[in-house]
């Protein structure tokens, strides 16, 4: 029997979706750790930012993998949603999905698309600026006009605008909802969830889904209220 390639089978897609999601969650954890430094010690934040921004392994290996994972995740997520909608042509006149599943699990595409819109803004805010500075203008020093590292001040400046902070917070609430389902779901997709670890996975997933976005929100609010005045 002629069979589809792994990435074109239903389970293959599920597994790849989960692997990209798991990778993105690891990335979030790393990103949060570094951002936390901006609250604890601006100097440390500058050092680490400079390292991440200039280290060739980070820049030319990890960064492309990250971008590929993000693109794969949202393109596949959107494609799957379209295909899944087509699998039921006539909808029910009366449906009661709340009786058997959570809002988070049914609306991954909505929470995902909001995150995607946020990522657009985020790229515009930080990434495009970094690329222009480093690779187009060729200034790899990471220094400002006064000869100090520019990363911390650039970060803080972004959070002066209250609207940006609000958009930031809303997006992270939606990320929390995405992960509340996504965390345990990813383990189920790769076949790692069992009757024994199911409850623990969901509990840990709930903690992860709360703590990580809450951390990012805390950082945004911290900078807005401590440095927002100038």
């Amino acid at each position, binding site marked *: 029997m002629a069979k589809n390639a792994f990435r074109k089978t239903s*389970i293959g897609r599920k597994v790849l979706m989960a692997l990209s999601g798991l990778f993105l969650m690891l990335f979030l954890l790393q990103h949060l750790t570094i951002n936390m430094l901006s609250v604890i010690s601006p100097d440390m934040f500058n050092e680490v930012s400079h390292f991440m921004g200039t280290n060739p392994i980070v820049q030319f290996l990890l960064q492309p993998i990250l971008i590929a994972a993000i693109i794969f995740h949202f393109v596949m997520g959107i494609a799957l949603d379209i295909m899944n909608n087509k*699998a039921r042509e006539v909808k*029910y006149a*009366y449906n009661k999905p709340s009786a058997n599943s959570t809002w988070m*699990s049914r609306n991954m595409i909505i929470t995902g698309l909001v995150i995607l819109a946020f990522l657009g803004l985020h790229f515009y805010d930080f990434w495009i600026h970094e690329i222009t500075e480093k690779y187009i203008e060729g200034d790899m020093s990471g220094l400002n006009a006064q000869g100090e590292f520019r990363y911390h001040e650039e970060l803080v400046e972004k959070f002066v605008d209250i609207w940006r902070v609000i958009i930031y917070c809303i997006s992270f609430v939606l990320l929390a909802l995405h992960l509340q389902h996504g965390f345990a779901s990813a383990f189920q997709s790769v*076949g790692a969830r*069992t009757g024994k670890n199911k409850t623990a996975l969901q509990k840990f997933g709930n903690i992860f889904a709360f703590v990580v976005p809450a951390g990012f929100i805390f950082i945004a609010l911290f900078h807005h209220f401590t440095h927002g005045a100038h």
Partner: protein
Amino acid sequence: MNLTLKIWRQKGPKDQGKMVDYKVSDISEHMSFLEMLDVLNEQLIEKGEEPVAFDHDCREGICGMCSLYINGEAHGPDRGVTTCQLHMRMFNDGDTIYIEPFRAKAFPIIKDLTVDRSAFDRIQHAGGYVSVNTSGNTQDANAIPIPKDDADKAFDAATCIGCGACVASCKNSSAMLYVSAKVSQFALLPQGQIEAKDRVLNMVNQMDLEGFGNCTNTGACEVECPKGISLENIARMNREFLKASIK
């Protein structure tokens, strides 16, 4: 009790179909849901109208023939039962009840509330079996020791009656709960090992060809399944599929 029924009527596979209102009265709360529909059909036949077509056979929750999406849930509001086991005491006098067919592209409507679930049969044919030599010296199955836990889980998976409630409840019309039950009932037993690789690959391939959607782990199927088939089976099928794809 007296009820208003909103029922999907569709003359044939190609007909447009629509929801039609009916009234039934003096329904006993001890009746099963299908008996209530029998009462409606008697009324319709007496009036010279076409009775409502719906699937049923054993009427005791073992054949998997009955279906129906009742008030937004497969097999109605009760848990762990099929529509034939659903009692009218789950409803109140004066209620309006929506009755629709199980909907999925892979389950085309034949007439009214009856749908064609032969896609499930084709998935079974693709690998849901063990080849047993019937030469006359077949080994007694009990001669092979099997851990109790595995035997129990295989048995639990084997209680799937192939009703399709999982597909009907899933927002993606995914058949993964059904297929995973059929994969698991063999994957857990030594007799199933020889054909394990081809089984999972062929059954998943057939499932994809039939046009079912892709699982997003919402878990609606597990809640609505009349036999309590667990999501654990889907995780097991994913593992089996991964193993089979890598080797």
